[in-house]
């Protein structure tokens, strides 16, 4: 019995690695042969960054059930920290990335401890406020350019970096969710009192999810800053947090694959509607309304798309 389980895991692992390597190689080939022009590449980067943001927020909003509206704030912390490390202090990119995660995680901890005792709408408002505070603070620090932000950041984010960061985000969060720790986190969403009475320190797990989510938002911020040459506080405003929230809700609260699919969809939609930027927001709202009416649980509900699902579709009985 045990060997069967082991073998199955092994097969699944090999399959996943093959698929991921395939995607990586294909796009790498496309980039180096000029099949993917810079327009494609920019959208590809946004897609990866959006996946990181959506998946990390889905850990907080979807799995822990804590409505947070300040995700862009953590992204800003990551973006600014990494740029200060690389551009201003001349440190290598990897160190910038690590510091970005660390500082964003720290910000998550500082914000999470007092706010996570709030529930529902109160928590949403508090996190919204904190997100804005981060933005306003950055606006007023002259060292990082004040409202104008930082220009001329060296472009260090390459496809391998983006790919690695995205895969890391998804793998860490999926592995976390599918473990006893993940079940503890989900039980907080399901029934906080019952969870607490089953021996689960709900405050600890709420803060844990919040910090991990913030760390990966920081990672996304570092990737963003070193791809788009420029960061300014205005980029990380409430609307950005809202964008990420839309992806999570669209994908389905409590589904990582849902968040990934929604992030890809929204990025493509944004790219397609670039000429009509004003309409984009109306369309967003419209899509949300339609989804809430006809599919309130989001595209995927709380289901996941796994290799097992594919296996079933292909009639693989193992």
């Amino acid at each position, binding site marked *: 019995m045990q060997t069967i389980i082991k073998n199955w895991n092994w097969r699944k692992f090999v399959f996943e690695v093959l698929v991921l390597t395939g995607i990586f190689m294909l796009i790498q080939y496309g980039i180096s042969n000029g099949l993917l022009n810079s327009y494609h590449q920019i959208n590809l980067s946004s897609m990866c960054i959006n996946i990181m943001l959506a998946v990390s927020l889905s850990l907080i909003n979807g799995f822990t059930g804590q409505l947070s509206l300040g995700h862009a704030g953590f992204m800003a912390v990551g973006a600014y920290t990494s740029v200060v490390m690389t551009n201003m202090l001349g440190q290598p990119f990897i160190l910038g990335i690590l510091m970005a995660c660390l500082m964003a995680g720290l910000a998550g901890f500082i914000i999470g401890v007092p706010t996570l005792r709030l529930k529902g709408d109160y928590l949403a408002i508090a996190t919204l406020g904190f997100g804005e505070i981060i933005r306003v603070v950055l606006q007023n620090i002259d060292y990082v350019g004040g409202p104008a932000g930082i220009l001329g950041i060296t472009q260090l984010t390459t496809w391998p970096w983006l790919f690695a960061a995205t895969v890391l985000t998804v793998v860490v969060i999926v*592995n*976390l969710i599918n473990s*006893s720790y993940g079940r503890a986190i989900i039980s907080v969403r399901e029934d906080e009192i019952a*969870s607490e*009475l*089953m021996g689960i*320190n*709900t405050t600890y797990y709420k803060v844990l999810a919040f910090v991990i989510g913030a760390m990966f938002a920081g990672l996304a911020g570092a990737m963003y800053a070193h791809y788009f040459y420029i960061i300014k506080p205005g980029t990380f405003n409430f609307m950005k947090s809202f964008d990420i929230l839309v992806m999570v809700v669209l994908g389905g609260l409590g589904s990582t694959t849902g968040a990934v699919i929604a992030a890809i969809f929204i990025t493509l939609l944004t790219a397609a509607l670039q000429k009509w930027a004003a309409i984009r927001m109306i369309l967003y709202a419209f899509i949300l309304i339609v989804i809430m009416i006809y599919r309130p649980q989001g595209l995927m509900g709380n289901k996941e798309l796994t290799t097992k699902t594919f296996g079933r579709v292909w009639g693989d009985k193992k």
Partner: protein
Amino acid sequence: MSLMEIKNLHKSFGGLTAVLNFNFDIEKEELVGLIGPNGAGKTTVFNLITGVYKPDEGRIFFNGQDIAGLPPYTICKKGIARTFQNIRLFNDLTVLDNVKIALHKDVPYSLMGAICRTPRFFRGEKKIEDKALEYLKIFNLDNKKDEIASNLPYGEQRRLEIARALATSPSLLILDEPAAGMNPQETHDLMNLIASIRERFKLSILLIEHDMSLVMGVCERIYVLDYGQIIAEGLPEKIRNDKKVIEAYLGEEV
């Protein structure tokens, strides 16, 4: 030494005194019932013991340690588990996951181990799964392990809740009206089940119940609560004939 001893417990909500001067004790492997009319404060007592409410005054000694005012998850880890009057399962999760969550307090691998998927993680998950299935088997729920908890029929939800509470490996199990909404046959089965889990797990059980046949049938000792105060305590026969108890339930003779 008794397993749990409560001394002078007191709790009021604003001007309303819910529990007043409550004294109580339960021995190891004893089955004690707590009865009383609606609104007598029975559930409040349970909430005070399990840490959902903090007592205003009084001490709760469990295995000699004062646990009054500790957070619920600490009290659970010390060995007190409970079910709820209105079932509180993790509704969107499977039957198996419901029990697995209760096993989390003894999780055999670290957070990093889970993220990196170490061999220890796989072994630990296997152990958790086997243990959870073992509990489900006792309650005849193992063939429904992949069902979503909220889709179970009422009686099975009740049983799942008891299974989940037992999975935290308590030495005191607190059941808040386990027979609520059950028909006489189901109540009878539940009685046998309660007696058998006490035998099997060697634990003490404290029971709130309205169904007198259940209380009188299984409890070794009964406390009667009225208006937040104990009005009688003793063997079932004694309680059955106690004047104060009859008064509390049926009203005074004119």
